[in-house]
């Protein structure tokens, strides 16, 4: 469904993303992980059209979408959420979600109904008239998810949707994401919360210093020495292996 090939993005002298490639097959949940500052959100921003890549190609559902404006990419069915939630603060929860619904229908009545059903899917049906600015962090994350969902996307780009949530809230969102995938939406997510990554992802890509250093099934990635070193520093893998030998 989504193919990213050799994508690069430079900011002045800094090469934030260096020839990164990844593949997201239809109907899967794929995760993108890596230490802070690795370039994950930059990569997302390039894929979703918010930044123009300096090199590489992005193809979505068979079409080349490299460098298209964000709204055009959203219309094609690839929608992103934001790491720091961006609610429409003075609008209510219902109005927020309805903006997403309006992408697929011009009729206010239909859009409202669609928004209500999406709200129910993420458990916000009791807070429809609450101004978005009154929501807690967990509420805003759900709202962000609901808004994107209302656009009936084919591929959802979730940027650290678990950040700032406690373990209970994380489990709830994990279940929600799985349900969304089961309803036919492909998912690519950036995540730091390993609990979520391990339980959700079918395939993991690891980005470090802008470069893709590994990819594979969750268990393989967890044991991969390059990944361990990216997070814990050089020689950590050997130390861990040595420590295990002595234990």
């Amino acid at each position, binding site marked *: 469904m989504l193919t990213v090939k050799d994508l690069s993005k430079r900011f002045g002298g800094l090469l934030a993303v260096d020839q990164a490639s990844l593949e997201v097959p239809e109907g899967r949940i794929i995760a993108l992980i890596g230490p802070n500052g690795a370039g994950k959100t930059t990569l997302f921003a390039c894929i979703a059209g918010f930044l123009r890549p300096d090199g590489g190609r992005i193809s979505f559902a068979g079409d080349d979408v490299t460098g298209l*404006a964000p709204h055009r990419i959203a219309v094609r069915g690839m929608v992103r959420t934001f790491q720091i939630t961006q609610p429409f*603060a003075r609008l209510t929860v219902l109005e927020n979600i309805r903006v997403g619904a309006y*992408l697929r229908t011009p009729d206010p009545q239909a859009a409202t109904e669609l928004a209500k059903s999406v709200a129910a899917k993420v458990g916000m049906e009791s807070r429809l008239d609450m101004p978005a600015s009154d929501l807690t962090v967990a509420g805003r994350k759900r709202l962000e998810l609901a808004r994107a969902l209302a656009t009936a996307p084919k591929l959802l780009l979730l940027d650290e949707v678990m950040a700032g949530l406690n373990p209970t809230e994380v489990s709830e969102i994990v279940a929600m994401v799985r349900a969304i995938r089961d309803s036919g939406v492909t998912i690519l997510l950036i995540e730091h919360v390993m609990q979520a990554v391990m339980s959700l992802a079918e395939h993991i890509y690891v980005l470090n210093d802008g470069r893709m250093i590994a990819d594979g099934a969750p268990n393989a990635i967890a044991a991969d020495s390059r990944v361990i070193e990216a997070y814990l520093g050089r020689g950590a893998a050997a130390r861990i292996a040595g420590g295990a030998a002595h234990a």
Partner: protein
Amino acid sequence: MSGRQSIGVAACVLAAVLLPLLFAGPAPLIVRSNYAVNFGFLVLFTAFIGQSWNLAGGFAGQTSFGHAAFFGIGAYVSSILHVSHGWNPWLAWPVAIAAGGLVGCFMGVLSFRAGLRGSYFALITLAFAEVFRIGANSVPFTRGGLGMLIRADPRAANFQFRDPIWFYYLALALCCLSLAIAWWLTRSRFGARLAAIRENEDAASALGIDAFREKVKVLTLSGAMCAAGGTVYAQKYLYIDPSLAFSVDKSVEMLLVTMIGGIGTIFGPLVGASVIGVLGEVTRELGGSIPAVKNAQPLSVILYGIVLVIIIGYMPNGLLGLFRRRRALRQAATANAS
């Protein structure tokens, strides 16, 4: 709108239609007073052009300091067609409206294509209005700084009315139209998208909204509406010049009535225009009664400036916003108590 609200609005409209008949029209029931009718005209007219500003500045969040550009274009296009080319003003009116829309589209395309937002957008609209003002002051077909005089010929077919009550009714109709447009915005996809753009343009883009196109659309609509007002103004007062039609004061007036009443609300401009109208009259009366004061007009404008600062400082959502907040707090309090 709820049933009770609809009845309320209908009652107000009925009152607005019937009240002036007490003072004017074919058979004034109390006493003939053009003063009252003209006051009513001014309030409704200002509410109308204020609403045109509200569409772009309030609903879409694109603050403009140069709406006088549209107002002046409307006034000048219809006046030039009428005075210099013999057109009937009723026929010139739609041309003026289209011209206003065109200018709005042009300004929008240039400014939004360049990614201008917030204060930069406000200032560039001001600059556009200035270009028009200086241009109108300098070219012969606008009669330059002398302005244009429309020959008085008070026949309805000529878009002039002997009895000011007809201008009043025209302003009332336009005001109601503007309220209807604003109401439509609150329930349509276009309006929802504008609200999204206003709140967070990037998030709106991520949801598939073509922010550029929607902003240009609203500025075009706003420009057309405002230009319609320009023509009415010219036909009522039979005189326009660049410093009246394209002035910063005119732009500020539209902005001010909307902010006082409640930016982004349906009735905001009407509430604001009423407040400003009353404040203006009171200040002029009080100022005029002081013998040393030669010209009390600037006094009311000083007051407007002070009111603007106070509104921004203490009630950025205007009077309607204040009532809404009080009511929400009261509802929350009773909900908590129960």
